[in-house]
């Protein structure tokens, strides 16, 4: 879209964009370029010199079992977080749209967790599930479950999944409510007159019309699970026990900062970049096509 009317000035637009361009170049392009650059280098143990090694870092990466393991964990993690998050939010949003009394009350209460930082969410749930003192851990033990996420990798993964999903519910609910409100009531009334039950109306009318929103949230949730959950992991399990909760982005951090493997970490960054760019492109292409404004 273009504007018909424009101002003429030789220098003013440059001055106006300068701050943002400057920040973007210094803190985005330059580091991003460096990340790509480092991915093709190997530093010697003392950090004195680096040699250009083409794709060696990448090859090592894909032969590294912990890296492949991290891939699996991330895939599992993001699918469950996105899936459970979207399904439960959809349910809550539909119910919230349905009730007349208290709708505002419910919506406000469902929305506030958005304000909680992922790291804090992690801490809260870690507290609830803390093996010896957590209240939920206590109930689990009372029910006979041997709960100790410090030792059991699957349980640790479950913990971070719960914390991450919990936090994201409010975001999803908000968008689903907006999506539901944009469905014309007359469609549902016409269907009701045609004899469709509420459940049928939902699956044959509401759900398809909601698909742009659902798809959009799917991509957002996956990106969230890939990146924003760093705080959850670092605040609770730090990728452990035994790398069972080490998602890809965490490994980038760990290898780069703790293990000082700059080349490997950079190569992982590049892989992540490719993944996220693909996701964004898919989202833009797909959503832009399907969404009707």
């Amino acid at each position: 879209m273009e504007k018909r009317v424009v101002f003429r000035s030789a220098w003013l637009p440059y001055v106006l964009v300068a701050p943002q361009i400057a920040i973007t170049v210094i803190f985005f392009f330059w580091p991003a370029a460096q990340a790509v650059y480092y991915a093709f280098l190997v530093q010697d143990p003392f950090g004195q010199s680096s040699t250009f090694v083409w794709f060696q870092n990448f090859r090592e990466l894909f032969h590294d079992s912990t890296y492949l393991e991290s891939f699996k964990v991330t895939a599992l993690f993001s699918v469950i977080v996105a899936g459970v998050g979207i399904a439960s939010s959809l349910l809550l949003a539909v119910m919230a749209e349905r009730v007349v009394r208290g709708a505002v009350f419910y919506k406000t209460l469902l929305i506030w967790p958005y304000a909680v930082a992922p790291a804090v969410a992690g801490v809260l749930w870690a507290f609830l599930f803390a093996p010896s003192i957590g209240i939920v851990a206590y109930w689990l033990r009372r029910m006979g479950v041997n709960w100790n996420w410090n030792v059991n990798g699957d349980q640790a993964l479950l913990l971070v999944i719960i914390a991450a999903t919990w936090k994201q519910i409010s975001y999803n609910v908000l968008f689903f409510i907006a999506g539901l409100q944009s469905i014309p009531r007359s469609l549902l009334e016409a269907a009701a007159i045609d004899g469709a039950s509420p459940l049928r109306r939902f699956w044959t009318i509401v759900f398809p019309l909601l698909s742009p929103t659902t798809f959009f949230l799917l991509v957002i949730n996956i990106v969230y699970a890939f990146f924003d959950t760093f705080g959850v992991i670092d605040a609770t399990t730090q990728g452990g026990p035994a790398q069972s909760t080490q998602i890809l982005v965490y490994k980038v951090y760990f290898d780069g900062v703790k293990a000082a493997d700059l080349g490997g970490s950079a190569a992982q960054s590049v892989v992540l970049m490719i993944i996220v760019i693909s996701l964004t492109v898919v989202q833009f292409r797909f959503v832009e096509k399907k969404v009707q404004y």
Partner: protein
Amino acid sequence: MVENRPFATFVAHAILILGVAIVAFPLYVTFVASTLTYDQIVTVPMPLIPGDQLIDNYAKVLGSGSEKGSHAAVLPMLVNSFVMAMGVALGKIAISIISAFAIVYFRFPLRNFFFWMIFVTLMLPIEVRIIPTFKVASDLHLLNSYAGLILPLIASATATFLFRQFYLTVPDELAEAARMDGAGPLRFFWDVLLPLSKTNIAALFVILFILGWNQYLWPLLITSDESMYTVVIGIKRMFAGGDATSEWNLIMATAMLALLPPALVVVLMQKWFVKGLVETEK
């Protein structure tokens, strides 16, 4: 819904109450824990009604931090978080609003190039370029400083897009009338465009403030000095590791302090918050 079905409505309420309960439960437990003594927490099961240590715990935490793990007082951390959140929100809004103005209302060589440059920043979150960004910040002597906390985070383009979308909907005739009235571009921006942008600015401010407050990875890397910790980092550093040895009551009090300001912003400015979220994701 269309028909009036009492049972279904009852079920809807039940599900909602369950949902709200699950959502609110951690908060409630956290609050209760922040009002108990350490011993009360460690003795399972932890009581589920608030205790009497509220003032004690919060005073201790604000003043001198926990005794095991990090010793940092939380009040300075709250200040840091606040400065960072405000800095990110205001900084991003400021540079974006003038960029969007330039891109929409002017024709100049490199316009499309700059536009795509800014657009590309939407694609890569900071976590992906975290280590080189740290190096750049370090080279610029920005470690352990507010500038270092804030500047790298204002690089992304969400705000620019929002303002651009908005400006495209402002009628052309308004700018033409202003031009005939004698207003130059800056005057038009200040007298006409900016006042019209107020709701968008408010919505963005809410979102960005929360985003800035809740930042984790970046502050973790760039602050090593305790005096520069934000409250979100502070909580993590309070963990002595493991579970029983941490001072849970104080950690929970800190957690409450960490989530209260953003939660208040969300609840009190709900209208703008919702608008901001929906607009930035389009």
